[in-house]
């Protein structure tokens, strides 16, 4: 029997690795992928709790999160393509017109 805390710690670890990716990677596509990783970390918590309390509602939330992730990726990648088309780069620290 695996204690639910193990799953939670794994979930936190994945989430934070994803967050680190968002913070350090400069390629916009990798940043989007890191966000997917963070979502997966959160999903793991949902499923672990669903199992602990014997309620399938958590699964529904994961289902919805995956839906939102799909929509987000569609728009996010469209923006990346647009960015590349206009600026010739996908490096997000070169896109910084919105500053002081």
């Amino acid at each position, binding site marked *: 029997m695996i204690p639910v805390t193990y799953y939670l710690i794994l979930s936190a670890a994945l989430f934070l*690795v994803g967050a*680190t*990716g968002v*913070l350090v990677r400069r390629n916009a596509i*990798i940043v*989007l992928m890191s966000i997917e990783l963070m979502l*997966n970390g959160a999903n793991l918590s949902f499923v672990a709790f669903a199992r602990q309390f*014997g309620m399938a509602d958590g699964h529904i939330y994961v289902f919805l999160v995956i839906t939102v992730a799909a929509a987000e990726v569609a728009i996010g990648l469209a923006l990346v393509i647009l960015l590349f088309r*206009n600026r010739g780069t996908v490096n997000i620290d070169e896109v910084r017109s919105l500053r002081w």
Partner: protein
Amino acid sequence: MELYFFLFFAVVAVASSVAMILQRNPIYCVLLLIMVMISIAGLYLMLDAQFVAIIQVVVYAGAIMVLFLFVIMLLNLSREEGGAFRIQKPLAVLLTVLLFLPVAAMVMSYAGGGTTPSADGGQTGFGEVEQIGSLLFTKYLLPVEIAAVLLLIAIVGAVVLTRKGTVSVDD
């Protein structure tokens, strides 16, 4: 036995994800992320979430990651150069590690943190398609509809954004 499975999947997931954010080649990044997805799918199975495990593999690993691959190949991206903000990277790593500590401390002190009840202890049919399906179309009907509309919006948005000549950013 179960613990070994858990450790296996956990190690693969964490290692792949760490490798993903260290990897400079975007294609490898995608493949490593798929590794993470599949190990998480394995963990879902251990948690009696068969339906979620299936869509994790089919939708996430299958559809979404393929979309990433397409875009990377479409843009023909090379390896990225070093960033302008040198301090950002070490600081980010330090902060996320620091953030992990209180989160871990909170989880460990979680009062309900007993063992997960076995599948036998729960209801039969837990996490199977029948149960999920009935929940989706009864209790969660409205969220499902909204999610559908959201997907429609995303499709329209993606099409409009990437059409040539409609959106242009003057620089």
